[in-house]
């Protein structure tokens, strides 16, 4: 009996030992003896442009046998000079994301469900084309709308041209910089961004500006930061409620009550004015309404009050003001962060007035205005009567009535008017990566949108929130697979045009949006098609690029030495052609990756001030109450204020969800890879009995989400900070990641002037969650 057992044990043991050992030893998947991996091993470096963010850095992609393997910076590109940010580095994960849509999809069954059927491109295009023609024939072309992202390229031109010819005024782009643009429009008559000459500036007075992490020209700023830190000739003062990356790199961090940045700026202005520390010559020559501004300041601004309302000590205000004057040239910068509060326009105008006081506009180390790259304009469109009539229809969102000349189109109004069918209902909506803010808003309104818009087409290359709305998906390629140009953000002082070549052929059955539109245009009838005479998008692109050759300015990307020479020559009015024909120019352009004009011409008054007076206009028509308006109602139930901040390189788009390499590093300061965290001041945490790394609920009247509490001395005792655009799963799909999106906590309040959502005034409470 006993022996029998033993035998059994032996056999069983023998078997159980040998099998797992075998499975372990023969690690099949890692011994590449499979027969199909015969690679030619041909290696190429393809110059292109990264469009993972609005920056448009030059990249070189290493391609081995039609596989894109690694991204490096294009050393000749003047913006990034061979460097790439983490998002750009992770870009290939976007290209090879498992979430890519493989081909045109049609929604079947209930619109609320996501059941898809694969269809052919012919069928898909046919469906869209028929729909568009029907609407046009019945005189409803204006009820077609397009929502896309704000980008500086020819695609933008093509899309707006398409809808103009088609006859729809409803071409919407979400722009997070709108508040800033409005402010420059008010003060200088330019509805655009101004460039900041950080390179020559000796003091950066930053009002919550994420110039090292979230500006489109981050790479330029990072490089300048590195160089100037090495030289030691840079001082940064960061004024922000939270100890951000910029604050941690600044020489001084000044915490401030949220939303009162403008007031602090006025406080500083009052010191400058009272102590006569401003640039009188500039103010006299280039500004208007200064006297009103001065009397407004002198009458209304008391430093004690400013100090109390902003939470910044009096001594600090005076110190900043003096430093701002002495460390000339100094710039006061702000960005879209200030626009996410109910008094955004005031804040930005107040900050910008400091630059006028210091005379830092159109001067080295100050605010400059980028010249547009001289690409060929598209030929004028010929509109038929349908289009002409439709274009006279009211746009689907009106600008809010205001005492100031504003030009903003806002998400909220657009979606609300679509949902409410006022002034008219939208019959067909096209969505093409409309941006994070937009996406989060349409998600909230998903049911209403589905209820009021009968036909929605998404161009998204990924299965995401927009595709969940769509009835039809016409998958766009990623930017790695198509021809594209990219014009540098107006935040850089020099115009750069980068050429993005397809790095590999489009994967799966995806097609570039541009060629989809050109194909559609051809199906819309002779009259329509004659406005789009290009056989493919590449042809259109090169047509535009030829303007760069004809303009007799700038040069194709070249070494920094050549670039410096060119700049010196050009600024003295000389220019020598480097290419003897257009073809040679285009060939070189595609090889080097783009064109730039390194020269900058100062003192072109009419270019910098485009308002009637050709002067900087001081605005003083603010109520002081307006200024401190951010003080939302104290609420015992919700004692803390929620501070939402953008993580580095995440602003304005949701594509980063598909980049796990990049996403996992966003929480590096808090030792977090995937979880959403909430930053709590040690004092607050102590009072609430919350320990570091506890799992807590963050609850606002709108709902609650789970997060990891991190005790963080870099945030004030009455605030809790939470990151935006952080996913919790490496390969985000099916809305998994949205459960904990802090945007769900926001109350629906908006800046009345610009319609930009206010993410500063929501109050929350936090408490420990049970379990994990």
């Amino acid at each position: 009996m006993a022996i029998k057992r033993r035998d059994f044990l032996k056999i069983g043991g023998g078997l159980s030992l040998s099998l797992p050992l075998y499975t372990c030893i023969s690690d099949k998947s890692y011994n590449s003896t499979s027969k199909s991996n015969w690679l030619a091993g041909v290696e190429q470096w393809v110059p292109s442009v990264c469009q993972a963010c609005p920056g448009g850095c030059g990249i070189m992609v290493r391609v081995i046998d039609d596989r894109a393997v690694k991204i490096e910076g294009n050393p000749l590109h003047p913006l990034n000079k061979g460097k790439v940010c983490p998002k750009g580095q992770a870009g290939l994960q976007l290209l090879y994301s498992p979430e890519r849509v493989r081909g045109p999809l049609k929604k079947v069954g209930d619109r609320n469900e996501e059941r898809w059927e694969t269809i052919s491109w012919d069928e898909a295009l046919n469906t869209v084309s028929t729909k568009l023609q029907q609407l046009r024939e019945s005189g409803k072309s204006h009820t077609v709308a397009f929502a896309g992202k704000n980008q500086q390229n020819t695609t933008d031109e093509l899309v707006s041209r398409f809808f103009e010819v088609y006859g729809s005024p409803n071409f919407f782009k979400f722009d997070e910089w709108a508040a800033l643009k409005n402010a420059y429009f008010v003060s200088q008559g330019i509805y655009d961004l101004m460039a900041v000459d950080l390179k020559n500036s000796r003091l950066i007075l930053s009002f919550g500006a994420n110039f090292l992490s979230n500006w489109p020209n981050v790479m330029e700023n990072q490089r300048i930061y590195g160089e100037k830190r090495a030289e030691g000739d840079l001082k940064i003062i960061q004024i922000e409620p939270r100890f951000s990356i910029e604050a941690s790199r600044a020489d001084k961090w000044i915490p401030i009550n949220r939303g009162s940045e403008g007031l602090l700026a006025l406080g500083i202005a009052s010191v400058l004015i009272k102590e006569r520390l401003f640039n009188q010559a500039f103010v006299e020559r280039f500004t208007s309404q200064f006297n009103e501004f001065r009397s407004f300041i002198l009458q209304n601004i008391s430093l004690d009050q400013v100090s109390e309302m902003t939470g910044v000590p009096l001594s600090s205000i005076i110190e900043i003001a003096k430093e701002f004057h002495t460390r000339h040239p100094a710039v006061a910068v702000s960005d879209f962060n200030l626009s996410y509060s109910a008094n955004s326009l005031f804040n930005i105008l107040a900050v910008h007035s400091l630059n006028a006081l210091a005379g830092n506009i159109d001067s080295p180390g100050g605010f400059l205005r980028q010249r547009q790259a001289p690409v060929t304009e598209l030929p004028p469109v010929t509109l038929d009567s349908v289009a002409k009539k439709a274009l006279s229809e009211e746009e689907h969102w009106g600008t809010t009535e205001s005492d100031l000349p504003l030009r903003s189109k806002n998400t909220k109004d657009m979606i609300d008017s679509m949902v409410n069918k006022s002034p008219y209902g939208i019959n067909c909506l096209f969505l093409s990566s409309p941006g994070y803010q937009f996406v989060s808003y349409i998600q909230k309104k998903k049911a209403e949108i589905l209820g009021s818009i009968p036909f929605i087409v998404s161009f998204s290359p990924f299965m995401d929130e927009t595709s969940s709305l769509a009835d039809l998906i016409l998958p766009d390629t990623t930017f790695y697979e198509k021809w594209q140009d990219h014009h540098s953000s107006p935040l850089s002082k020099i115009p750069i045009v980068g050429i993005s070549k397809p790095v590999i052929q489009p994967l799966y059955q995806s097609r570039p949006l541009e060629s989809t539109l050109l194909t559609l245009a051809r199906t819309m009838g002779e009259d329509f098609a004659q406005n789009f005479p290009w056989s493919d998008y590449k042809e259109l692109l090169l047509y535009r690029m030829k303007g760069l050759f004809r303009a007799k300015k700038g040069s194709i990307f070249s070494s920094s030495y050549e670039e410096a020479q060119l700049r010196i020559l050009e600024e003295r009015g000389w220019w020598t052609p480097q290419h003897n024909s257009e073809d040679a120019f285009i060939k070189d352009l595609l090889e080097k990756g783009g064109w730039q004009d390194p020269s900058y011409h100062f003192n072109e008054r009419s270019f910098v001030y485009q308002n009637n007076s050709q002067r900087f206009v001081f605005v003083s028509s603010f109520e002081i109450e307006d200024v401190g308006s951010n003080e939302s109602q104290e609420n015992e139930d919700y004692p803390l204020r929620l501070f939402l901040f953008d993580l580095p390189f995440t602003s304005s788009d949701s594509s980063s969800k598909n980049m796990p390499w990049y996403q996992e590093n966003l929480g590096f300061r808090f030792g977090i890879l995937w979880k959403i965290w909430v930053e709590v001041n040690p004092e607050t945490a102590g009072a609430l009995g919350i320990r570091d790394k506890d799992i807590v609920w963050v609850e606002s009247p709108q709902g609650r989400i789970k997060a990891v509490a991190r005790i963080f001395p870099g945030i004030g005792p009455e605030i809790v900070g939470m990151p935006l655009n952080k996913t919790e799963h490496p390969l985000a799909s099916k809305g998994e990641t949205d459960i904990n999106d802090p945007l769900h906590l926001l109350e629906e309040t908006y800046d009345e002037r610009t319609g930009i959502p206010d993410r500063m005034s929501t109050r929350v409470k936090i408490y420990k969650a049970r379990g994990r």
Partner: protein
Amino acid sequence: MKKLRKPKKLGLVLVGLTLVVSVFLLVILIDSWGGITQPLPFNHKIHTDNGLACEDCHPNFMEYASSGRPELEICASCHEEALTESEEEKRLMEYIQDGNEIDWVRLYRIPEDVYFSHRRHVAVGNVECAVCHGDIVESTRPPSKVRKISMEKCMDCHEDQEANNDCIACHR
């Protein structure tokens, strides 16, 4: 009872043992099988006799890590029309007519953790093809076995040639 039991027990042991042994044998067998048949019985000799050089069909070995397999285009450039009446060529012509790439099977297999570069060996190190590939140019039929290259051979040659013998020079 006892007498009956004994052989049963023995049998059980034997069955168990044979099972274990056969599993291992099977594993070894499968692993070392490696018999390959090329889609076409390519005759290297005929081609080299007709004046073709290695790089005519394997175009990449001076420049890239991989030597490159002969693509259909290369075949088609000579075999525009059938040059002989051989059975093999007929089949090749079918490939060419259909435009199907010939799925040549790899002969030399290097473990996944080794980085081997033809360029490094041929263009930089001036190693003759024959040093590794033997007299394949003289062969009239494709070899039927996968060639595994042993580390000893690499090391010996590297030592003789005073090439880099650092592990990370080859192990990636």
